[in-house]
């Protein structure tokens, strides 16, 4: 059964790019959130297997969203996907519970690798 993924990014262009990569590689994209708040809501509704989470988003940023999702579902599998890759940020994200951190722009393989690894590690 295809793994179900939720994409959270405020840029429609980025959501489209990530969705294309995932769908072409056999994943099921169950939702696209434009901001952290939407991401949290959609996560609760659809309980995806994995979330790709941008950091810089309006309403609620990705780090806050990770914390919110993980507090209600400690087993949530989330990988960060951001244009900002400074060490402090990466550490904050991992401490908040993200399983991996990809810096944009990323190669297709990097995204797929991160998704596969995060999913195989399990909950």
């Amino acid at each position, binding site marked *: 059964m295809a793994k179900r993924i939720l994409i959270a990014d405020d840029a429609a*262009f980025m959501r489209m790019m990530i969705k294309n990569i995932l769908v072409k590689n056999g994943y099921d994209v169950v939702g696209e959130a434009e901001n952290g708040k939407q991401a949290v809501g959609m996560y609760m509704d659809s309980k995806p297997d994995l979330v790709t989470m941008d950091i810089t988003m309006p309403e609620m940023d990705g780090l806050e969203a990770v914390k919110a999702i993980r507090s209600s579902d400690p087993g949530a599998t989330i990988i960060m996907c951001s244009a*900002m890759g400074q060490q402090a940020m990466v550490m904050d994200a991992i401490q908040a519970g993200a399983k991996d951190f990809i810096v944009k722009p990323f190669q297709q393989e990097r995204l797929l690798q991160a998704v596969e690894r995060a999913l195989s590690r399990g909950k």
Partner: protein
Amino acid sequence: MNKTPELSSTHLDALREISNIGMGNAITSLAQMLNRRINMSVPLATFLPFEETVQLIGGAEEQVSCVSVSLSGDVPGTVMFFFNSQSTFRLVDLLMGLDLGTTTELDEMGESAVKEVGNVLTGSFIGAIYSLTSLSIKSAVPMFAYDMLGAILTSLVVASGRAEEQVLVLETKLFQEQAEANINGHFFMLTEPGSIQNLFDALGIAMS
């Protein structure tokens, strides 16, 4: 408004270093996004009064796209990328994998693509500053405008409130394999009073 710090030759060297590394990293990111080899030159790295930046880009009536990103942290301010309409359409063509010349107007997806370019370029730029200086800078959600240059600059000045009189200008020319696809961009950094000094101080330490 504060007076911009006097520029010594050390400052100018530092400025060139920031622009080479910062824009270099940014262009590498852009090249990856576009899946193309992109060369760049930064023919101009200087401080200019805000008003003079208009002439640099092409005049108040030039139709341009502008991605502006608010920065917070150690060097608060705003970075702005300007592309004229031709360069904007070429950028969208390249990002969407379309034949050059396909895009003749901006739709929501095109706008989103250009905004994302600004987002990624900013991320690379502040990442480079961080590795050079350990100064930590955070970027916010990018804003986008496609309008006459004069109108955009006026609203940016109003929005920025108190700012240094002078703007850090890195004029950037991007060269592509196909000359028809050359993209001209201008990169400006508007900083809050005192924050450009943070940058120079940190660079002074880094370069001593």
